[in-house]
């Protein structure tokens, strides 16, 4: 595997291998000295065109725990603000000897373009409304560690699926790993032709009793001013996860959220902070999963 651009590129064996490596990496994170020498002398560039503290820090921690040299390149206050193109930035990184570029970008497909212009590996850390593969992998890791399996699980993904890169990556990966996916949200925010193998539902209450995993997506308030739904309150009433809805879920079912949350919008504090919520675990698992991805891409497995 050269790049990680989309979860569509992962077959079940490779995805499972990443999760297995992540399990080993997690044990490192539990040690007193949280460091492996695996990527010593390798350079990982975090190229972030969008502010995303949690993803950048997670990748930075992952690379550092593998002893890679990490360069953080933020578009703000950089040559990008002076009008440098992605291609020219790519050549600059190339000239500096980047072995891997972790890219977060507001334009869908930017990592695919970048992969044409650098010889190192490209990791998609979220591109526009397209994909966020490491988020889907860490979600799968979290499901597997909580539920013991992924195959056969029923996962409901709830909210703004249309604009969600998390949802797209999850749909593809969960499909590959044998889970059943139902997309839930107002029809304005759920594309019906995203993937033939997923189900679409508009009634959250009808779906909850059958779900093993309920993944809540962040809903941006600006969607409201663009008439995707009438008001934040109406959205919360119809698609927000509160205590009453949590109790409609099977006793074993878990609640996930990729963060950052809009408390009170798509999820109430009671649910977010309940023992059935995996939100903090997801952050922890993110580092292990990203270590596994870097390890695999940068030839650590060979």
């Amino acid at each position, binding site marked *: 595997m050269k790049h990680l651009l989309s979860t569509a590129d992962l077959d079940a064996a490779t995805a499972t291998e990443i999760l297995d490596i992540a399990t080993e990496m997690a044990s490192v994170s539990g040690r007193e000295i949280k460091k492996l020498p695996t990527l010593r002398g390798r350079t990982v560039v975090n190229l972030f065109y969008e502010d995303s503290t949690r993803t950048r820090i997670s990748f930075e921690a992952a690379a550092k725990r593998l002893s890679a040299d990490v360069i953080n390149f933020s578009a703000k206050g950089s040559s990008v603000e002076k009008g440098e193109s*992605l*291609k020219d930035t790519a050549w600059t990184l190339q000239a500096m000897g980047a072995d891997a570029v972790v890219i977060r970008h507001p334009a*869908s*497909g930017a990592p*695919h373009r970048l992969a044409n212009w650098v010889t190192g590996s490209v990791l998609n850390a979220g591109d*526009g*409304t397209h994909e966020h593969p490491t988020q889907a992998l860490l979600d799968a890791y979290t499901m597997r560690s909580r539920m013991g399996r992924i195959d056969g699980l029923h996962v409901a993904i709830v909210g703004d699926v249309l604009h969600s890169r998390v949802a*797209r990556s999850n749909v593809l990966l969960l499909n590959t790993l044998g889970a059943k996916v139902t997309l839930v949200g107002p029809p304005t925010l759920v594309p019906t032709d995203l993937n033939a193998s997923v189900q679409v539902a508009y009634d959250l209450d009808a779906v909850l009793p059958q779900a093993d995993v309920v993944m809540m997506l962040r809903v941006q308030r600006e969607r409201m001013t663009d008439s995707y739904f009438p008001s934040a309150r109406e959205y919360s009433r119809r698609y927000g996860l509160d205590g009453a809805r949590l109790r409609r879920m099977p006793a074993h079912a878990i609640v996930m959220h990729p963060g950052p949350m809009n408390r009170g919008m798509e999820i109430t504090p009671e649910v977010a902070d309940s023992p059935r919520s995996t939100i903090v675990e997801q952050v922890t698992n993110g580092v292990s999963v990203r270590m596994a991805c870097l390890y695999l891409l940068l030839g650590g497995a060979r």
Partner: protein
Amino acid sequence: MTQPPTSSPMTVRRTPVPDILIRNARVLGGEPTDLVLRDGVIAEIGQGLSADGAEVVDAAGLVALPGLVDLHTHLREPGREDAETVYTGSRAAALGGYTAVCAMANTSPVADTAGVVEQVYRLGQEAGLVDVQPIGAVTVGLAGERLAELGAMADSAARVRVFSDDGFCVADPRLMRRALEYVKAFDGVIAQHAEEPRLTQGAQMHEGDVSARLGLTGWPAVAEESIIARDVLLAGHVGARLHVCHVSTAGSVEIIRMAKARGVRVTAEVTPHHLLLTHEKAESYDPVYKVNPPLRTDADVEALREGLRDGTIDIVATDHAPHAAEDKECEWAYARPGMLGLETALPIVLDVLGEDWPLIAERMSYAPARIAGLDGHGNALVAGAPANLTLVDPTVRWSVDPTGLASLSHNTPYAGMTVPGRIVATFLRGVPTVLDGKVQK
């Protein structure tokens, strides 16, 4: 440039031009025949002709077509001379078999005054490779707010008859109605870029399963179809002519077919790329496939081909849209929409329609000349007609090389593709603009 400032462009062509004797050309694919081009017209046509002192062009095996006419060309001058100029675009046109192109108005400054259209017209005359007929903007600055001085452009030396805000839709129904009505005074036509702007905000590609998967904002077919439906009703209501630019969906074809059956004076064009390519091309995220309207589905391509064959769609127009490298070598969402078209149009149409030469002549020469009101173009190749023609070798298949094209820009979606049909020669009023596949200026 070559002319004294006081002389009219017509005098330039009075320089002595040798007669041309074309031997054994198959006019519209018929039996081999000879043509003598003299004083800008086809002087004689028949077998075994001779002409003293004439330059002889051996056209054995070549098909003679009337010079092609493009109703939809972006020449980028004035404003983006780094992407294309009237001269380089004229070279590309001649090499593509064209003798006339209609230059779209979305230049900088916009061609919304008599001054700008006359400038473009004059640049075309100076280049001298094809007749460059400027299209005037419908609204000032293409802003869609108030009418540009359409009459002044019509009365100018450029004699503008086609008006378009192409790149933008004349979305305001009242303004569109007024424009359709107003140009009746000088037999003008409004060429509409049909795109309801509220339905295409931020749109990047055809709305469908591919856009859903790629996370690119969709450009729904209904945004085109709803405007066409409205405009054919408006044109019918005020009894005006409407031309629909770059039709891209099956639904649009159906609406136009219905409007024609009801007697509405509507004509329509399709681009070569919409006849051949589909939205799956976006999967590469390579913006060379980004175009407006976007590439659509297989079903749309089929409907467009059928519409072109049965005459619902009157013409093929290139929407030749050169873009500088930096406007394409970037993220999809930041790239400008558009593709080169002039040098590959005939090969693509040949690929799509097959060697139906009379049909190709109708769709790429006669009909576009009629719509644009270009009397000197789009005439059958008979004695006495203006000597605007092109010679094509249909047996040659060639591979498209972006850097081998005459355009200043390289944004062809056909790079590496093998296409049929090579333009061997083109004549503008009897003067060779292309010979042996090489442009003469």
